[in-house]
């Protein structure tokens, strides 16, 4: 994926000022970069990512700028000049002749002036405004003229600076960088993946929306949650239930098929889900098809290529169908909208067929009646949309409310029996009523499937970034985890996690297993797993092992010849903490742990054996 810029792809445009613009690149539009100018989107569609483009001067008869790819030799010309300057220690200077030669010979005109500048003391104080002889009007005039992508302005600014020769090489570099950021007309196109997107959301948009989730934390949560591809898709056979059949025709939960499922509580508007989906290979669609370029009949996408061992996939997601979807794109999708379903030979699945895979899934539990996963829109997925165009998340993302998880009998959509109607009656109805009938039955079957599967438990891991109290989350989710499953909770501040870790403190656990706790006497392991908590023991302290809290922080450095140091400022705010542990299966009965000490023979005789 992300080989070349596709039409209608979401991308991030990195501007010289350091800011990023996130745009959907629609074909046949003009993209405006504000003061840097504008260019037609068709000039970057079909081109590779990560190249640096420069806006050329407008041709006399055109209203837009054309683009030019800036070679890396040009990008780094200054650094190279510095490295080859005599008094600068240049580790790899000898390697300069090995460089792949630049296809474009244009040089940055200032380099020659600059390469020879030697470090000076900064005794003479330079007041920048006073020494700049160009007035603002003159600068504006220069910008309006053909100005060679802003380089002329920068050059003139530097040349008309009267005290340029008094600057030290450091302050000169800084001055030039400042002017370059302001006037150079270059940009870079980056793909919207989780890392790029999260960085943009954190640094330039609303960090509170994603709970200040830094890249370090996304990495840690993903690794400690052991989130990874959870196995090839297994889809359930269509029960082919007739419309007269009710609840009894629904597919039962087959616990043996359930593998590689992660439970998520996400209050980051879907960023956490996106990060997990990326790790599980269900975020980007048509990955291989994209890599093939525009060739006809691309191989099926990863999800589809794996024929489930136990059953067949539903018609909507057969590889063949996905292919047609890929090749003749917009026209077909419009048609798809107009008549609801694409024309196909296969019969449509029955109402009770389950589109979800049994493996490699993400189950989101949410507090509101609808999950807030709005950021997934950047990856082309909208959870609120019915008749969604194909997307891998469609059959790998399950969601249910806390009510459906904990008290399903109180949830109307779960507890109301599905509508039934004999085929004859159904045929006599108006199409709209029939449509509603099917829609409601489908929804019932799906909700039932999601709720029953989730309540069956045996999840491979729990990952959380929530504003809710973690103790309450764990109280209800711990029983759902398989033995040995990892738990990874993110919190922007340490206090909630510390309170949680305290529930598993050694004194608490010791007291619990010592058998001196009146309230748990006589409870079976089963009952203890579902321990609802009291003030003394908010959680069953034996259900987690290896409880630990950590925080990570990346410190960025500037690496330039002779000027390598950590950046002076970075984003502050929440540090971010991760709570990690593993789900334990405590042994039945009292467990003694007195250690093995040789000299205490008397003791060992005195102890009573572990009661059954």
């Amino acid at each position, binding site marked *: 994926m992300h080989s070349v810029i596709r039409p209608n792809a979401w991308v991030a445009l990195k501007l010289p000022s350091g800011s990023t613009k996130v745009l959907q690149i629609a074909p046949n539009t*003009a993209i405006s970069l504000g003061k840097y100018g504008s260019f037609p*989107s068709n000039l970057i569609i079909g081109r590779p990512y990560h190249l*640096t483009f420069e806006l050329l001067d407008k041709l006399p008869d055109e209203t837009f700028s054309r683009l030019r790819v800036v070679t890396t030799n040009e990008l780094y010309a200054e650094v190279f000049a510095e490295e080859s300057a005599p008094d600068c220690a240049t580790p790899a200077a000898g390697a300069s002749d090995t460089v*792949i030669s630049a296809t474009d010979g244009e040089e940055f005109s200032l380099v020659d002036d600059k390469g020879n500048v030697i470090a000076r003391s900064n005794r003479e104080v330079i007041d920048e405004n006073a020494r700049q002889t160009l007035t603002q009007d003159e600068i504006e005039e220069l910008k309006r003229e053909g100005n060679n992508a802003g380089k002329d302005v920068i050059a003139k600014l530097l040349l008309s600076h009267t005290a340029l020769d008094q600057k030290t090489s450091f302050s000169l570099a800084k001055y030039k960088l400042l002017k370059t950021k302001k006037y150079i007309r270059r940009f870079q196109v980056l793909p919207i993946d989780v890392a790029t997107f999260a960085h943009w959301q954190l640094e330039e948009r609303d960090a509170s929306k994603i709970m200040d989730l830094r890249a370090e934390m996304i990495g840690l949560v993903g690794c400690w949650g052991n989130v990874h591809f959870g196995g090839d898709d297994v889809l359930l056979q269509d029960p082919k239930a007739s419309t007269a059949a009710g609840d009894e025709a629904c597919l039962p939960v087959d616990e043996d098929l359930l593998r590689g499922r992660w439970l998520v509580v996400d209050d980051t508007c879907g960023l956490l889900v996106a990060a997990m989906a990326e790790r599980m290979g269900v975020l980007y669609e048509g990955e291989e098809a994209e890599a093939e370029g525009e060739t006809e009949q691309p191989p099926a996408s990863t999800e589809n290529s794996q024929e489930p061992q136990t059953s067949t996939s539903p018609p909507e997601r057969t590889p063949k169908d996905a292919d047609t979807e890929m090749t003749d794109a917009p026209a077909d999708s*419009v048609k798809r909208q107009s008549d609801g379903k694409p024309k196909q030979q296969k019969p449509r699945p029955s109402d009770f067929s389950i589109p979800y895979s049994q493996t490699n899934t993400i189950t989101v539990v949410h507090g509101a009646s609808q999950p807030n996963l709005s950021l997934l829109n950047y990856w082309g997925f909208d959870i609120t949309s019915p008749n969604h165009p194909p997307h891998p998340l469609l059959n790998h993302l399950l969601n249910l409310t806390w009510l459906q998880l904990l008290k399903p009998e109180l949830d109307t959509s779960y507890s109301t029996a599905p509508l039934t109607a004999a085929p004859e009656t159904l045929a006599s109805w108006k199409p709209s009523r029939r449509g509603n009938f099917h829609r409601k039955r489908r929804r019932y079957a799906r909700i039932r499937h999601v709720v029953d599967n989730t309540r069956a438990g045996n999840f491979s891991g729990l990952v959380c970034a929530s504003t809710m109290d973690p103790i309450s989350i764990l109280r209800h989710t711990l029983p759902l985890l398989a033995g040995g499953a990892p738990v990874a909770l993110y919190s922007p501040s340490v206090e909630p996690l510390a309170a949680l870790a305290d529930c598993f403190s050694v004194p608490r656990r010791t007291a619990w297993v010592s058998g001196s706790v009146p309230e748990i006497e006589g409870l079976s392991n089963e009952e203890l797993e579902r321990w609802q908590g009291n003030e003394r023991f908010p959680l069953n302290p034996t259900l987690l092992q290896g409880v630990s809290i950590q925080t990570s922080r990346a*410190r960025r450095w500037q690496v330039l010849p002779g000027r390598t140091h950590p950046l002076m400022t970075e984003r502050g705010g929440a540090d971010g903490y991760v709570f990690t542990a593993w789900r334990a299966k405590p042994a039945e009965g009292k467990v003694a742990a007195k250690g093995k000490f040789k000299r205490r023979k008397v003791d060992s005789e005195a102890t009573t054996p572990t009661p059954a």
Partner: protein
Amino acid sequence: MTPTTRNISPFLDPGPRTKANSLAILQLSRDNLLPVYLQPPTGEHDGYAEGAVVNTRYGSFPHSTMLNVPWGSQIRASKVDTGSRGRKRKREGVDDACREATGAAEKENEDSPAATNEDSATAVKKAVADASGFIHILPPTPELWTTSLPHRTQVVYTPDYSYILHRIRARPGSVLIEAGAGSGSFTHASVRAVYNGYPAEGERKGKVFSFEFHEQRYHKMKKELSDHGMNRLVHLTHRDVYNGGFLVDGKSPEADAVFLDLPAPWEALHHLSRRRPQTPLNGNAAPTENDQTEWVSPLNPKKSVHLCTFSPCIEQVTRTVSAMRRLGWVDIDMVEIANRKLHTSRERVGLNLNFDRGVNNSARDVEEALTRLVDIESRFREHAAKPRDGDEDMDSADEDEPAVVKGDGPTNGGQAPSAEETAAETAPWMEGRLITRGEPEIKTHTSYLVFAVLPMDWTEEDEAAAAAKYPLGKEQKVIGAIDKVARKQERREALQKQQGAGNRKARRKERDTKMGEAAA
């Protein structure tokens, strides 16, 4: 094409229960982990009647008690005769006594699944539970493996590799080059990251191409990978990549991401180009046979390639970055990861607390200090006011002193209100203030991480083809940063359109269409 379940590495899918001949991680205490390959019970092993046994400071654990139990299970220690192995058994009597004493426990063991598979190994002595302690048995994950693996080199720890894998976009289906396999912690983590199923013959799936220069480490690593069921997911090569490059059997691995944990990454970097570097980076690294043949890039030609190098010294970083710039890498970014683990505990401060470990017996707050001072003061005054006879002053003073000290305890206890509170209801583990603090020793520096991206090769012909495919001149709309007037105009038009076409359904339909287009 899908492998049978038993072939899947326990790192990727451990299954619900522990299995024989598979890796399990024993958690002895929080940070004390022990990797163990569980052995099926096949009679006496190494002198143990119970078969293979793990001996720890928390007791002895025969493998038979740890087989076929759910992952995460708490395992009780067993009574194992560790003393008389190989010698004639002298302590027969003692053993019998133990057996009798733990009869009840034994009965329970019989019910547990661990003890039910005796038919297969009748020769194996059944394990008897012991009260000396317990452990937990965890499924292997790269994190657990990283903290428990046998060190051969410096290890890339979880805080670093989690960040690296995120930044170099290692995802299911990626092909990753790793040079300097070392102890294998990064290898395991990257296998998990790129895994999207075991590859069928000739199929491209997520894979790690790992290179190790050191022969012994190479063999150990090879063994480890096959033990962990990762043979087909990792292609391990014994090679010096500075001279040998990254091709495998002369073919390109077509890597999407690269991780270099080498002492001199800049000497390997020239192999990671799109086209043949015009002259080799080092005079000595000129493989002559390569000059005649066509130069093959080990990188995926259809994608930007992400790279990370891992070097402890700043000098290495400078040279690496310099070489990267000359070889056309962009977005060069150097970071350093600082990770801290936090311990939580209860801090108890107060005058009237017991003398447990970790209790600070000084005044809890100013009020408590004040109360105490007033108390001392008043008693002092009381004492001074006592009428005393001139001749017995020395003796009485001596007698009085201890009396004051004796009285100190009860009075103090009675005065502090906190003592009553704590003694009455609060459990001892809820006393005091909850605090977090760092570990006693922290890793302040692991290595510098240098990230870079190498874009696809883009030629004049490619550009011409793309230009023909996406012709100019049909621009209708402006997106991005547009000025105020244009945006106002646009909004006005959109509003009119909305009022015309109106309802929610239509809008949703429109959005669906748009997404359909985007998806295509």
